[in-house]
């Protein structure tokens, strides 16, 4: 993100979170999407993001139809069994600061619908990415990790944007500088069919 104005536009101008393919090509079509949403490209996004795509001869990241999101939950039993608490915020800040090299980051709080099984071709379902060979914080509960959205996360899925900035000094820390709420946010609870009963 270039600056505060660009960060706010994602909510204010209803841009939403757009994949790099759309950002770079500007014009995409439903037929193109079908070609892009493949298992092969999902593997490229997860494991070979910056490498040259043999099919396009360009870095894969330029044409990726996926958007990486961080998901996290804190369950005590999982924490006791893994000694590892995964909050989405830590991962998001690390990626948002370009792996700790930048002093500020913009975090967007949003929701997506997860596919219960791999469904890479379905644009409106996000994929939970879990490489069990490489993923070493053993957890039988699978409640955390990377989620891939496809093409775009609509602006009304975004609850807010936060700007975090490194406050330098003898004990540096990340300070939340501002929050931009989204008045058009639609809560995911609207989708639930669970009824409250007395």
């Amino acid at each position, binding site marked *: 993100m270039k600056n505060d104005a660009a960060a706010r536009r994602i909510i204010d101008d209803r841009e939403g979170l757009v994949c790099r393919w759309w950002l770079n090509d500007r014009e995409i079509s439903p037929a193109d999407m079908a070609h892009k949403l493949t298992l092969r490209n999902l593997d490229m996004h997860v494991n070979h993001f910056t*490498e040259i795509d043999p099919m396009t001869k360009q870095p894969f990241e330029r044409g990726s139809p996926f958007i990486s999101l961080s998901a996290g939950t804190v369950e005590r039993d999982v924490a006791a069994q893994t*000694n590892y608490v995964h909050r989405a915020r830590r991962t998001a800040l690390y990626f948002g600061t370009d792996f700790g090299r930048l002093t500020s980051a913009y975090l967007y709080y949003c929701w997506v619908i997860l596919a219960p099984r791999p469904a890479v071709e379905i644009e409106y379902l996000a994929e939970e990415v879990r490489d069990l060979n490489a993923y070493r914080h053993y957890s039988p509960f699978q409640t955390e990790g990377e989620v891939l959205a496809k093409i775009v996360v609509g602006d009304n899925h975004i609850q807010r944007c936060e700007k975090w900035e490194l406050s330098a000094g003898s004990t540096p820390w990340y300070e939340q500088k501002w929050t931009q709420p989204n008045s058009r946010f639609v809560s995911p609870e609207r989708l639930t069919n669970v009824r409250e009963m007395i």
Partner: protein
Amino acid sequence: MAARHLEEMGLSEAQVRTTVGFLEAYANTGIRELAAVISDLDGNSEHRHEALLAEPAFTIAADTATALCEAGRWMLYLDADATRSLLLRAGRQFLDIGQPYGAYLVETAGGDDVLPYAEMLRRLADGTADASEWPALRHPQQQAYLMLAVAGSPQSGELRQQVIGALEASPNVSGVAPVGALGTPVRRLWDIARHLIVARPDSADVVAGHLASMARRYAESMALAQVNERLWRHGAAPVDVGDIDIAGVAALATRRFGAPAMAQGTRMAGLSVDRDPIALAPIEAGMDLALPDDPATSTEREN
């Protein structure tokens, strides 16, 4: 400490230090948030403990402890003093929220904290962990870390019989519950704890054999994680590059049996510097954690 281990893994010291800087800053953020959440307490330690176990304090404290522990793991191959300091802070934070894993980190770091091991062992033995300050002890994983910590601690002498009794009475002797980042079967850690406490003549070799098995698994995981070059280079691969399960056991065993015995044991278990540099990395780093100020016992020379 050996930065060469990082070079062998294709990681830059600069990125590791950047990652540690991020994690420390993140932990400092959590400490500030925690202070704000529990600031209205009257300083009573019992009230503080209760407050830490309630939300949102528990999540913030656990997140902070995780970040400190991660930072310590990253420093494992660069700076023993910094690693010990980070693990000590992480361990104390984990103990504050009732996680015996914290005791393992404190002992790995060589902290001189006097921990309530007798009470924890009693709760474990009579099955009343749920009603105690240590409800996490109902999990085999936390039990394993407690047994490693107490068996490797300076307090182990006075608790010897209680520890041996707890070890022998537990189904973990043959348990297969996965523990730690490597998913090590709990029976292996249980056996390591038993040898740390009984210290038979062959115990160093047995522990070194267990370490070698874990280290081979570690080397394989590192190789798999390097497939994703971008995450690997930026310290974002979902693996523990500095494996504190291996390094911690190596540190505890080195304090118990000595560096020469552990170096010989790992050689006997088939690990060599030329053939298995990655597998040996966390073992050597753990041995250095145990013997920070004695260059004569440096693992660089032993191997």
